[in-house]
């Protein structure tokens, strides 16, 4: 649990909506939203109580304060019964973060060696207001929001994660891009001393890990820069202290431990495209109709699952965010631009 400093505006325990009513209201609003399906907005519901079993982290004071002022449940799944939040231990114990090893347990085992305080991010390229910024200064001007998103890995498994973060659009606007800025390019930290996966001489990845978004994707309100999850700061293995979350794209697009954000004119070559361009493209939108050459993308295993119920569900176009993002790709051949 985070240390909570009560504010006069805070709700009392008695003000908390009983879950049954909360859920039915959610369903009602989900129904109302109809066309905006998936995006049910609610007021400031206090969510810290929901994470009472989540271990306390070691966030700096400024981050604790930002988190305590979060707009909780800003975006939630329209069907919370189907999209149940994964247990914290699973979300923080089963990760792909190849900087720390290739086994899904490696990041949780070895990411403790990453020093995340202090942290700064270089914002450069086609911007008028570039430079190196302390993470604190990037976070402070924006309102933290809790976004409960489905995360669909390209390996055909998925989890539902409650992120805490700010819209990427806020950061880009403050950087004041020039008219030449067409894409956003992101870079993960390179530091073999702290990241043991980068010491492997058999790694296929040419560090740093690079990802990119088209400008309109980066500016989309669903795209966030996360600094926390489950009511606390990000565990290192989940990409602390700053990571991208783009819920309609495969998980590998959501680059972790970011040290550089560049506004560029040319489409960046992201790491996986560089490694195997026949398997991974620049867009990497979740698409059940376009298979990975080595496995089907038509279904996914929603985790946690158990031995005899693999919890296999149909994968949805744009990971279920079709209504919000399909227009970004109008007229594009998504078979070609996978």
């Amino acid at each position, binding site marked *: 649990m985070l240390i909570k400093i009560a504010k006069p505006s805070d709700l009392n325990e008695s003000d908390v909506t009983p879950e049954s009513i909360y859920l039915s209201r959610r369903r009602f609003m989900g129904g109302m939203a109809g066309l905006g399906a998936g995006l049910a907005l609610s007021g400031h519901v206090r969510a810290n109580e929901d994470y009472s079993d989540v271990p306390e982290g070691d966030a700096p004071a400024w981050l604790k304060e930002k988190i305590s002022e979060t707009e909780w449940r800003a975006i939630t799944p329209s069907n919370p019964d189907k999209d149940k939040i*994964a*247990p914290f231990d*699973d979300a923080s*114990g*089963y990760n792909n973060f*190849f900087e720390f*090893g*290739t086994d*899904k*347990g490696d990041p949780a085992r070895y990411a403790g060696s990453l020093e995340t305080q202090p942290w700064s991010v270089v914002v450069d390229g086609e911007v008028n207001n570039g430079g190196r910024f302390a993470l604190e200064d990037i976070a402070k001007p924006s309102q933290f929001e809790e976004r409960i998103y489905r995360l669909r890995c390209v*390996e055909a*498994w998925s*989890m539902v994660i409650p992120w805490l973060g700010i819209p990427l659009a806020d950061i880009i606007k403050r950087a004041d891009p020039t008219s030449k800025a067409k894409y956003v390019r992101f870079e993960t930290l390179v530091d073999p001393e702290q990241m043991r*996966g980068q010491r*492997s*001489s*058999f*790694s*296929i*990845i040419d560090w740093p890990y690079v990802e990119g978004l088209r400008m309109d994707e980066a500016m989309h309100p669903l795209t966030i820069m996360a600094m926390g999850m489950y009511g606390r700061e990000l565990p290192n293995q989940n990409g602390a202290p700053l990571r991208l979350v783009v819920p309609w794209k495969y998980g590998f697009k959501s680059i972790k431990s970011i040290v550089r954000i560049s506004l560029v004119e040319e489409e960046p070559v992201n790491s996986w495209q560089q*490694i195997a361009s026949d398997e991974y493209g620049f867009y990497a939108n979740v698409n059940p109709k376009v*298979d990975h050459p*080595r*496995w*089907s993308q038509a*279904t996914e*295993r929603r*985790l*946690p*699952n*158990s*031995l*005899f*119920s*693999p919890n*296999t569900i149909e994968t949805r176009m744009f990971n279920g965010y079709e209504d919000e993002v399909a227009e970004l790709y109008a007229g594009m051949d998504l078979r070609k631009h996978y």
Partner: protein
Amino acid sequence: MATQHKWLAWRVAVFLAALTPLLFWSWQVANNAAGPEPGRYLLLNIGIGGLWMLLLTLSLTPLTKLTRWKGFALIRRQLGLWTLAYATLHMLSYALFILGLNWALLGSEIVKRPYIIVGMIALIGLAVLGVTSNKWSMRKLGKRWKPLHKFSYAILGLVLLHFFWVVRADMGEWAAYALVAALIMATRLPPVARTLPKLRYRLSRT
């Protein structure tokens, strides 16, 4: 009589040692210690376990040449059958825990994915060797038995290819297994194979 008992104890010990990983992983799954995707956990561990069994099986002949200890030859059939058992469980884990016994999907995946095709060929090969591993088949096949069972070398190659195609980001682990496999196969090259007994002679004299 005493030596009979000794060899039986040795074979039982090998049997239990080969069974232990399976029991250990099952125990982990039963105690929620196998992560959020226990089926995949079993699938990958049993797969690697099967590769271990195959490498161990194929290392018995050079070990016998090197030491002339009878014990290695005595467990060759058993370890070969363990390889088949692990491979079968690996495939069943995939069908049960990953595909959820969706037969249509299994059919289309087997046809479409090269790494699965290669894995299936290796499994069928192991099954053929398993079925023909008894004394009756050895007698029946006579001189053809040995060349048939040399197909296990090809199976090792197929298994490594299957593994190679599954790797996503780091070849380190695969390279380590490939190196061990290469060493084991190198002992079968005629010049090396001829040297092994001489090496034993030299070792026994020092």
